[in-house]
């Protein structure tokens, strides 16, 4: 797969198969609007988008990891661990720094630094120790989850009340009526789309994912690019945590439970190949929105017994993927 071929592909209009997830998203929006008058209200739209932001940022990073033939199961636990350490650090720094912008910035820097280190650990174990990404991240998933439970003494780590009140607007308020998490998610998504389509890094990811041996022969530094995808993902998990902590101001052993599967599902629904070689960042964003909309619609409309919510989600996830696969072969 050469750069030239990829570049022409990106300038062609998206085919029907690429529109599959978008079609599913539009159908869901129409269904939601039909079932409940409040569905399209500003409040509800903000809720759904802000809720999607955490998984969304993580899923954008996951798109790069999966595209280059990797996988990361540890992101949910990593988010919980980062949130726990960030809260403990901010509580510890409080007497010295007092409530204010410097304290929040220190907390954010710590979150990003731990995200970077965690991503680096995953990446080095995959590229240098040559262990399967599934096994490496299954291991770190357990490690991060236990560490946060241990830090919390089995309970919940809570941010100091005064700091929390000060930090709260980072989740709840925004710019020009658009909440911060939504803005940050949008920026991450646009940057991700550009990185995937219009930079060397994105092309290398696809090249490595489709055939890493050929990529190596083409003078692509395979290990370094792979390592960078994990570091990028770690940083984005840190960023997601920065937006998550002000929401409830706490972290526990159950924080970020199953986020990894939601992020991976969003990536695949969006049209990225699970075996690597092809990535579509805007598709991932659509996938994330589909997942949160399903939840939202099921809550807003009393369609089925709540016991069946999981089944409905499963059916829609599979349908969204069938829709694009079916059309691409036609």
């Amino acid at each position, binding site marked *: 797969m050469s750069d030239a071929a990829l570049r022409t592909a990106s300038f062609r209009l998206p085919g029907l198969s690429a529109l599959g997830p978008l079609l599913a998203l539009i159908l869901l929006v129409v269904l939601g609007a039909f079932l*409940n008058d409040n569905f399209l209200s500003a409040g509800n739209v903000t809720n759904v988008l802000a809720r999607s932001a955490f998984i969304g940022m993580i899923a954008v990073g996951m798109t790069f990891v999966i595209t280059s033939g990797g996988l990361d199961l540890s992101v949910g636990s990593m988010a919980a661990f980062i949130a726990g350490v960030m809260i403990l650090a901010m509580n510890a720094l409080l007497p010295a720094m007092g409530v204010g912008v410097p304290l929040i910035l220190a907390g954010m820097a710590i979150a990003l630094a731990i995200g970077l280190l965690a991503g680096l650990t995953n990446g080095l174990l995959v590229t240098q120790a040559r262990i399967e990404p599934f096994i490496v991240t299954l291991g770190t998933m357990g490690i991060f989850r236990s560490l946060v439970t241990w830090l919390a003494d089995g309970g919940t780590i809570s941010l100091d009340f005064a700091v929390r009140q000060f930090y709260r607007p980072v989740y709840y308020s925004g710019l020009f009526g658009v909440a911060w998490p939504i803005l940050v998610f949008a920026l991450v998504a646009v940057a991700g789309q550009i990185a995937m389509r219009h930079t060397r890094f994105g092309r290398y990811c696809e090249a490595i994912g489709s055939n890493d041996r050929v990529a190596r022969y083409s003078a692509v530094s395979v290990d370094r690019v792979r390592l960078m995808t994990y570091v990028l993902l770690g940083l984005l998990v840190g960023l997601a945590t920065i937006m998550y902590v002000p929401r409830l101001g706490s972290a526990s052993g159950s924080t970020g439970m199953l986020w990894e599967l939601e992020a991976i599902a969003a990536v695949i629904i969006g049209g990225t190949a699970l075996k690597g070689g092809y990535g579509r960042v805007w598709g991932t964003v659509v996938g994330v929105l589909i997942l949160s909309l399903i939840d939202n619609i099921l809550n807003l409309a009393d369609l089925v017994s709540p016991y069946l919510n999981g089944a409905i989600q499963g059916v829609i996830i599979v349908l969204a993927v069938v829709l694009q696969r079916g059309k691409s072969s036609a």
Partner: protein
Amino acid sequence: MERRTFLATTALAAAAAAAGLSVPAAAQGKKVTIGVSIPSATHGFMGGLNWHAQETIKRLKATYPNLDFVLATAGAVGKQVNDIEDMMATRNIDALVVLPFESEPLTSPVKAVKDAGKWVTVVDRGLSQAGIEDLYVAGDNTAFGRVAGEYFRANLKSGAKIVVLRGIPTTLDNERVDAFRKAIDGSGIEILDAQHGNWNRDKAFSVMQDYLSKHKKIDAVWAADDDMAIGVLEAIAQSGRQKEMWVVGGAGMKEIVKRIMDKDPQLPVDVTYPPALISTALEITALRFVSDTPVYGRFIIGSTLITPDNAKQFYFPDSPF
């Protein structure tokens, strides 16, 4: 002569015990090892339970020097079965206090302990076969729902509209919700919605956000769990509708109990389902080995209402939960 010495010893021991000078006579006997097997601290309630278990063991060891405890926490059913087998094989336990991860898979391993002639105390989740355990200690899920329901009934007018958050779909959750529905039945209170929040803050937060978009008027929320209550309160704060409704959680988390003590109008009461029930089980089991107190049977811990007046006795600031 022999009888006289016997009587004298008993009298002495009784006097000592009455004076609180030393432990009862039986406590000076042989070493007794009690195995304790509980799920690990994966969420708030279990975290509290683990903490109370450790604290109680510390205290019992100090009080009764001849008692020894083996504590094992398990993150999965299989691990718990292994723990119990190990306790039997290597630690030679005299009694087992177990909170089964799941009823079915734990039934035969616990039965094997019983068949070996050991004392068995089962906590909170019953085994699927009756008559194995010597002692059963548990919370009362029906009362948990009923007490909450009665509070709603007494404090809301007919025609009031409420929403309910349910836990993880289990029989335990069904018992609670059924009892709640029964308690408000015929009062004219309408349940607008009852979705699963899985006893999780984040999930409860988004479910409550959706309730608030969907329903123009909500008079009260039964969050049915203190972790869920935290998420619910945050969603209500975001919508700015704090004055419109109050929230009742459940279990007795310290942060929530504190707010009830401080007379928070949004959190008038809480319903107990104490993680300290493991302490009850341990204390009673210990009694079996240090005294002649009959302790076989069932001990059901009631669910009571925490109000600003009595909140102090339910407040454990050192517990993680």
